[in-house]
């Protein structure tokens, strides 16, 4: 499908594996969140405007996933940013405005950084830039002004990286998530950030080609930024008291597992990153939905207040436990596998960046440890309250089926993917080999 904005800028759509894989993920997750929010927004006065933007964000995501050239993707990317920023404004009070403007500013900053790269490309190429596996630009064309293109690639990585929360542009997450309604946070953290990863994959693997970036300063910087952000996210999450903010920092860290996996520019790392895209999406949505259940039923926002909640909401906390064990990556739970692939990718990386890759592997492990540090105490306290709360009588206050059913479905999916991930990994492996 085509629509010409001008001679150069053509709105064009196509269907390919990468888009389809992400679209399956996004639509499944949107369906589950949609079920959940029927329960969540039962008594909310602003729910209509929320739902409108929810639908719009879904459409813009689909538009991004199926775009066939750089400019279409860029425009859709902007649309995604704008529509999802409205989730954060939902409560219409001071904090939500602050958080909302934060996400808008950061999206704009990121988008303009990327736009610079996009324009550079279009200005020099003089024609449409489609997405082709292994890079649509030929080496002869690139070799002429390789410095300019490297800068353009770097800016696009960072710019689209605003959604993958890479270092300079990570700070919107911890501000935006706590004030957004939980289904909104879940959408942001589960799907929207993946669109950033998607955009980066499209730019690097479908426009420039992995060979062009490999071994250059762009790859080195990219890896270093990703490594620092991994550590930053989990370190600050470990120190965070507000549950949703903690989860937001966790997203910062986990998203950069994906970025790190991609930045390795080899097949193993790419498979690992893709597995992590899927699993992190499932897990983080579960975690945010659980946070939503807790806020919805009890109004508690601080981690310290969660003593004994596991006895009140056994199903919810069971799902939380499964999700958090998975996120830490304790085998056989899923993210063990993504970590396994990413680390192997890092070890296989030859050349000048090998040392950085090995450091990255160590940081990945430390971060996994910190992940355990910030996720486990919540459910441990939940099941086994501290002595002063132990003798209290706990009444069951499980939420309605609208909210528990999506959680249970997610938990079952997470478990199934952990035990038999080959269904997904085989597809991904075949696909990854073609992209390189």
């Amino acid at each position, binding site marked *: 499908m085509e629509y010409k904005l001008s001679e150069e800028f053509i709105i064009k759509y196509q*269907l*390919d*594996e990468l888009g*389809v894989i992400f*679209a*399956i993920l996004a*639509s*499944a997750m*949107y*369906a589950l969140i949609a079920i959940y*929010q*029927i329960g969540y927004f039962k008594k909310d006065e602003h*729910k*209509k*405007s929320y*739902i409108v933007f929810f*639908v719009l964000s*879904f459409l813009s995501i689909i538009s991004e996933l199926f775009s066939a050239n750089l400019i279409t993707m860029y425009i859709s990317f902007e649309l995604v940013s704008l529509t999802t920023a409205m989730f954060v404004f939902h409560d219409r009070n001071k904090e939500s*405005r602050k958080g909302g403007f934060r996400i808008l500013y950061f999206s704009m900053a990121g988008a303009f950084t990327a736009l610079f790269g996009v324009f550079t490309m279009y200005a020099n190429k003089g024609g449409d830039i489609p997405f082709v596996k292994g890079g649509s630009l030929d080496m002869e064309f690139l070799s002429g002004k390789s410095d300019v293109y490297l800068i353009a690639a770097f800016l696009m990585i960072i710019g689209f990286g605003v959604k993958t929360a890479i270092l*300079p*542009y*990570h*700070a919107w997450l911890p501000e935006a998530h706590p004030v957004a309604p939980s289904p909104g946070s879940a959408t942001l953290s589960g799907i929207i950030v993946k669109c950033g990863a998607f955009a980066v994959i499209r730019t690097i693997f479908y426009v420039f080609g992995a060979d062009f970036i490999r071994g250059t300063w762009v790859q080195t910087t990219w890896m270093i930024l990703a490594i*620092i952000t991994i*550590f*930053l996210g989990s*370190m*600050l999450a*470990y*120190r965070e008291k507000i549950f949703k903010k903690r989860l937001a920092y966790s997203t910062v860290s986990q998203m950069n597992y994906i970025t790190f996996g991609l930045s390795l520019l080899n097949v193993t790392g790419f498979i690992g990153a893709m*597995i992590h895209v899927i699993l992190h999406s499932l897990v983080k949505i579960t975690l945010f939905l659980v946070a939503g259940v807790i806020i919805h039923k009890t109004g508690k926002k601080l981690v310290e207040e969660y003593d004994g909640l596991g006895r009140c909401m056994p199903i919810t906390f069971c799902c939380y436990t499964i999700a958090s064990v998975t996120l830490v990556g*304790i*085998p*056989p739970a899923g993210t*063990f*596998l993504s970590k*396994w692939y990413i*680390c*192997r990718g890092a*070890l*296989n990386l030859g050349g000048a960046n090998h040392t950085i890759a090995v450091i990255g*592997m160590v940081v990945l*492990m430390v971060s*996994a*440890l910190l992940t*355990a540090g910030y996720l*486990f105490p919540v459910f*441990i306290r939940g099941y*086994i*309250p*501290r*002595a002063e709360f*132990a*003798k209290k009588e706990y009444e069951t206050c499980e939420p309605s089926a609208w909210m528990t059913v999506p959680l249970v479905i997610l938990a079952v999916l997470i478990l199934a993917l952990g035990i*038999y*991930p*080959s269904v997904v990994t085989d*597809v991904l492996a*075949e*696909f990854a080999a073609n992209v390189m």
Partner: protein
Amino acid sequence: MDNNILLLVLICLPFLGAVLYYVMKKTGVLYAVLTVMTLLMAYMVYIYINEGTLTLSIDGLFGTGVSFALDGFRVVFCTLTVIMWLAAMIYSKDYFRPGYTDEILGKKDGGVSTFTFFGLLVFGATLGMVLSNDMLSAFIFFEVMSICSYPWVSHFGTTKDMRAAASYLIYAVVGGLVTLTGILLLQHEIGGLDYSYLRFVGESMSHDRKMEIFLPCVLIIFGYAAKAGMFPVHTWLAQSYEAAPACATALLSTVLSKVGVIGMAVVCSSLMQGCYEWGMMILILGLITMLAGGLFALLSINMKRILAYSSMSQIGYIIVGLGTSCILGKADAQGLSARGAYLHMINHSVYKMIFFIIVGMIAVECGRNLDIHKLRGWGYHKPFLKLIYTIAVLGISGVPILSGYVSKTFIHEGLVKYLELIREGITCGGTSSEAFVKTLEILFLVGGGCTLAYMLKIYIPLFWCRPEKAAEVAQTVETDEDTEAFETKQTSGVVYVILGLLATFALIGGIVPEYTLNQLGNEGADFFAIGKLTGAYEYFSVENLKGAGISLAIGIVLYLVVGKNVKKNVIPSWLSLEKILYKPILLTILPTIGTFFMRIFDWCIEGPVYFIRKTILKDNSIEPKPHKEHIKLQEFMATGNLLAKSVSFGLIMFATAFLVIMIYLLFAMI
């Protein structure tokens, strides 16, 4: 039906049982699972005897594929695991009876359902780890085992228990991640993780190459050593054993610690076989573990804690055996030390099961405070328990004609053999002088002496002191305890049968080792890469008896001088590596430094913005006013609640349909 698939059944059955138990909440499920497991295990032994080694590999499970094998060693160890679980699970019914755990916890069932549920999960994971035939699948099951055993330690939920449990969990997670790093590095270095491949590589590898993979191997055994309780990663052990319910402690000590040892043994017996530096490291760490455990046990007064340190000390023995066998390599044709280590794994399991069941009985009667001076005379009028306990004490101390003697003698003989080789001028690739090895041997004997000393320390007050003095204590504690309530706390007959059988094994193993332990030892020969012991071995030669005699003499002296006179807890509470080193570093210093630097990065974009807004660009906050259009829109929207519902519903339908189309397209495309 193909017999290989039974391996998978063996592992999956406890997991299925756990799920069923969780759903149905019936004790019947537990007994059904245990019965089927016992029968299945018996059948597996039968198959093994007839058909030899079974192997099974499943690609795609857990993403990386798993492989299992059932060889001689695994048959023995799996049978041991099943027996131990049988004993502990049957005993748990007594332990969790009304009047003890339910009162502490304030829960109706005393937490028995939690214990059983996780017990079954750990059961499956343990079997999985033991049966695994490559490092990665072993690691996967090992981690499941570590994490699922956490609720055992946190069972009672008091602040002290939770601290112990936190320590347990941190070790499990840290150990797991370090081991995973090691496995990744090793995979990268040598390109395969299958046990047979490791053995092949280990044999053909030069010494220099071995030094290159030294670091990965250290990382790999870190997690396993932590589970086994080796120095310096032992700090969780005593507190966790004390915190867990007795039947859980029994399993932690008898099986889970051994699983850690198996993880270490894989590295020692394949990759690092014959590497002097590695063997010496393991040997010395094992010796420290043994001595530290023995010493701490000697100075403690809580019965459960003494037994916990005793476990540590005995694991030290096993590790010494592994280390010696690593140094000797092919020089030790009969594989005495590895054989000793392996047999001691079995013996220690048997004895510790006896001890911890008896600890559980005491705990049910006397509460959680198990100060040995308060328990004085508990067993004076219990002749059967006295007999069993006597066998166990003598057995674990290595007194001849009991099975502990055999295994300890083998380990000792390994060291003696090393000494002899050095005297003959064969250095086994190392630089140790004769005096150094002689010192090691003496320290080993002292460690053996400690065993007897701390065991006597519990045994004599408990069974040979008159209970009159204790009666006063008991009366002051539970004055209004009527006889009926006391009756309900009696142990059921099945448990006595279990104790009797375990003790019988110890006796038979010790009296006729040629027909029992010899056979078991030969079954394990392949796994530990040692030769088979053919022909008669002089178990009761003067040489061997001399070693045991010296050790026991040291033990009696130690008991009379130290053990008997320790009346209160003399180990200062600050003296623990965890308190002075690990916790401050891991929980305070490193996070503070990390947070500090990360905050700087966190502010690198916003800091300047904030700074500018506070100084140059002071803006007034603007309160937005609702627009007319917005109010109209609101009114319009308010009219149709239907609209919102239909949009939401439409979206669900749309997304679902979209999902189906996409999945179809994906498969159509690829």
